């Protein structure tokens, strides 16, 4: 037995709990999950059927945990798993699944398929069976602090830039601030508007906030590759930074992965509950707006639609907030036919940083493309830098005349001017 296989199986075994047993003994292979998965509906390749992607874990369960497996191994008929049982699935779980979790919503027997695909990813990454690009990015996140190789210096340069542009001071390492804001790599490298918008909004609403020079990066490559240990290490950094500055609340950036890692999985990755609260930026903005601390003026005239980032909406429960926030600033807002909890992924998600999956990602985008075209919207608002990046790429490749907007920036752009000196 090879080392990879041994490690992979060991990790898979540690992942088998009552839920996994229940899920696999419930699944009747009805194939409804296939109809919910954009990788299947857009390619019609049966291998992209969600439950098929869990096969390594399922096979292990079948061999070692199911009654039939126990029976066959007792009479010496068990068919042991091979390394191919793991490595053949590497492409399926890393390229052919964005972890959008739509399958988990539609399964008639209630199997959390996405959750189990994550377990497979976890085992594969632990066993060292992951796409090189992702492994490198994760390594960079561990070594340098960011998957895109962004260092504190880059952030400082950006801060300077933003301060110059807005004339506002960006608080860094302010101990005892109410909120610690985090950034995702994308927001540092591609969308500096995000920080600018934060500064404007918080200034407008009078929020006490800070950045941390030690914990500015919220992107969690560990989560993306599926490695819980590395994910935990990355979360630890944020925890340390937040605890050092004694903040009450940490703000997750728009990024969906960052939100999942911090808000939901973080405490489980590091094995202890947080001493601070974690909120998504949309939750905070919604609260501020409801409390009357954000006042907007003017409306976007063009037709807008909203793309629900899976990690934030379907798997994060932030469904009403973006709609509340859009309502006062959008003149002509239309929902996509399938929206909210049943929204279709744009093809990015967990696949976004996997360069090998480029072509598949673009094929999967076709679903989003037809969804957007149905609405007739001129711009798509979203609240995840990752979704935004992937969709921009799709829009560009398909030569669509669609603009992509970040919701936080839109709010910042519509802030009511205050009388000077207030």
């Amino acid at each position, binding site marked *: 037995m090879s080392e990879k296989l041994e490690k992979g199986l060991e990790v898979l075994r540690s992942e088998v709990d009552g839920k996994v047993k229940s899920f696999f003994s419930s699944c009747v292979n009805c*194939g*409804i999950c296939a109809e919910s998965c954009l990788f299947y509906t857009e390619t019609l390749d049966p291998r992209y059927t969600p439950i098929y992607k869990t096969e390594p874990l399922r096979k292990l369960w079948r061999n070692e945990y199911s009654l039939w497996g126990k029976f066959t191994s007792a009479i010496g008929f068990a068919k042991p798993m091979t390394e191919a049982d793991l490595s053949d699935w590497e492409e399926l779980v890393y390229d052919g699944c964005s972890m959008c979790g739509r399958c988990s919503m539609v399964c008639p027997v209630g199997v959390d398929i996405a959750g189990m695909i994550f377990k497979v990813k976890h085992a594969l990454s632990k066993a060292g069976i992951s796409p090189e690009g992702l492994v490198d990015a994760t390594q960079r996140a561990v070594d340098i602090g960011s998957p895109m190789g962004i260092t504190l210096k880059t952030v400082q340069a950006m801060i300077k830039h933003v301060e110059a542009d807005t004339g506002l001071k960006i608080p860094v390492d302010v101990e005892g601030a109410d909120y610690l804001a985090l950034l995702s790599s994308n927001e540092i490298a591609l969308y500096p508007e995000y920080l600018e918008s934060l500064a404007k909004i918080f200034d407008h609403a009078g929020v006490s906030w800070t950045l941390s020079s030690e914990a500015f990066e919220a992107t969690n490559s560990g989560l993306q590759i599926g490695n819980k240990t590395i994910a935990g290490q990355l979360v630890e950094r944020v925890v340390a930074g937040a605890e050092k500055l004694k903040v009450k609340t940490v703000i997750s950036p728009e990024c969906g992965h960052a939100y999942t890692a911090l808000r939901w999985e*973080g405490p489980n990755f590091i094995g202890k509950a947080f001493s601070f609260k974690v909120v998504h930026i949309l939750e905070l903005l919604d609260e501020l707006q409801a409390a009357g601390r954000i006042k907007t003026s003017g409306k976007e005239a063009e037709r807008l639609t909203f793309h629900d980032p899976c990690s934030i*909406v379907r798997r994060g429960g932030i*469904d009403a907030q973006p709609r509340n926030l859009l309502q006062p600033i959008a003149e002509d807002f239309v929902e996509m036919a399938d929206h909210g909890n049943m929204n279709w992924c744009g093809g990015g998600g967990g696949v976004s940083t996997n360069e090998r999956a480029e072509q598949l990602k673009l094929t999967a985008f076709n679903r989003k493309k037809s969804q957007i075209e149905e609405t007739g919207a001129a711009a798509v608002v979203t609240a995840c830098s990752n979704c935004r990046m992937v969709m921009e790429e799709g829009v560009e490749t398909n030569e669509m005349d669609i603009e992509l907007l970040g919701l936080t920036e839109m709010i910042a752009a519509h802030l009511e001017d205050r009388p000077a000196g207030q």
Partner: protein
Amino acid sequence: MIENLIDGPLWYLSLAVFSLGVLWQLAAILFASRKPDLSVARGSAGSSAIKTVFSRFLPHREMRARIGIQYIAGYLFHLGLFALLFFAAPHVLFLEENLLGFGWTPMPHWAFIVSAQAAFLGLIILWLRRLMNPATRLISTRDDHIAALLTFVVMLTGCLALLEEFTALRLLHRFTVELWLIYFPFSTLMHAFTFVPSRAFTGAWFGRRGVDA
């Protein structure tokens, strides 16, 4: 000889395998250790768990066009099967005499036949879809086909014995039922029980996050 075996020891054996197997499986699911979730919940896991157990009986609006035939066939099969399993006169009588000691009002003969027809049509369509659709063809295992075949054979032998006059046909039906019972805990037929905890687990997971699953 065979009659005595099928009506006697084999019946008790199959009942024992069925009930012990199901109990063992359910115990393995319910008493397995689960790590507590350390994140702060947004919504109630418990109420969402209960809600999801029921809400998954109907497909999401967004999915209806794609999987309508499967749901219709699925309901034809399952409702038909349950109706004839628990409300057909010979079954009620059998359960009363052999297992429970009490009976209830069975449905009229025509309703029995209609539910059997629904069950047959549903099962045939579901099975054919399994074979026709590339996705289900790929993911289906030997177990799925054996389970479908056994259920089909149980229903068919029951239908052959409808006249309730020929001992051999009754024994054939009972024998296939016994095989089905023995196979049950080893197979995906277990979903008849485990769909409840599965839905509840997933409902609870989504419920903590404030998502209506």
